């Protein structure tokens, strides 16, 4: 029962101001739409071109290099410190991780990413 009352109040409470605003517009305030007022972009500058532009996919190579030389090092240092006390399972899993990244390194190398002099 209370839930029904709460739902009723929750519906009526926001609807009253909305209805009043609608009534106010009907009686007093004429709407004045226009091409600029209805424009999507609202910073005073006219929008140019399409919104659906392509993002350059070449940046994935930078992501690979970053993972290899930065993120991998963060994992390798604690691995090297705790190397002697590690069980076999942990050793294999870090090896899989390394192999995956080495594969990325070979890919980036073959793409010419490590070439400084052109």
């Amino acid at each position: 029962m209370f839930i029904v009352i709460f739902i009723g109040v929750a519906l009526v409470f926001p609807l009253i101001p909305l209805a009043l605003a609608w009534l106010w517009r009907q009686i007093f305030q004429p709407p004045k739409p226009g091409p600029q007022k209805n424009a999507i972009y609202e910073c005073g500058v006219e929008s140019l071109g399409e919104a659906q532009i392509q993002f350059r996919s070449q940046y994935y190579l930078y992501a690979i290099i970053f993972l290899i030389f930065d993120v991998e090092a963060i994992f390798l240092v604690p691995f090297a410190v705790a190397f002697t006390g590690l069980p076999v399972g942990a050793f294999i899993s870090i090896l899989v991780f390394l192999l995956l990244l080495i594969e990325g390194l070979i890919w980036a190398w073959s793409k010419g990413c490590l070439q400084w002099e052109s």
Partner: protein
Amino acid sequence: MSEGIDEGLRRELQRQGVWVSSVQELYNWGRKNSIWPLQFGLACCAIEMIATAASRYDIARFGGEVFRPSPRQADLMIVAGTVTKKMAPQIVRLYNQMADPKYVIAMGACAISGGPFKQGYNVLKGIDRYIPVDVYIPGCPPRPEALLHAFMELQRKIDEQKLSGSDKAAHLDPEQPSEFPVPSFGKHDLEPPANSDVFRPMTIERG
């Protein structure tokens, strides 16, 4: 809607604890105490505008502290600073994108006339050439107190706006425009150099 009650009778009723109001008074009272300015500054006057909004001068006392970054939510445009000819179309476009009712305060010598840069080739000689200005503040830059004074003048202006009748407020009149033509960059100047529907310069009579 509003002239129904005699001022003396109203005061007498107020003394007895009865408050009489009208739709127009309630409407204007609500509007004038919640003027949201557009967060938008052009030059050094904007620093004074920021000072007005900050704690020392505290425009919140007048209900104007809610600076909106979107023209859709703003009621008041404070043109604070030098309007270059490059910037003028953007300002007119922002004004057009504001929802009615909307007001403009031209703050400082540059915004009202071009100020010290009036002779410059790239400076608009007053924003009132393109959009209707409600309150002008002279000064270079005007002190925050001057902006507060302009704000109070605008509140007084809003308070006097009529809800109905032939002299009702412009935003309630379906005939009055809400958008104004945006000037474009011409070969030497903005095209047109002024909107003649809005800009009515005073003529100097010598005699």
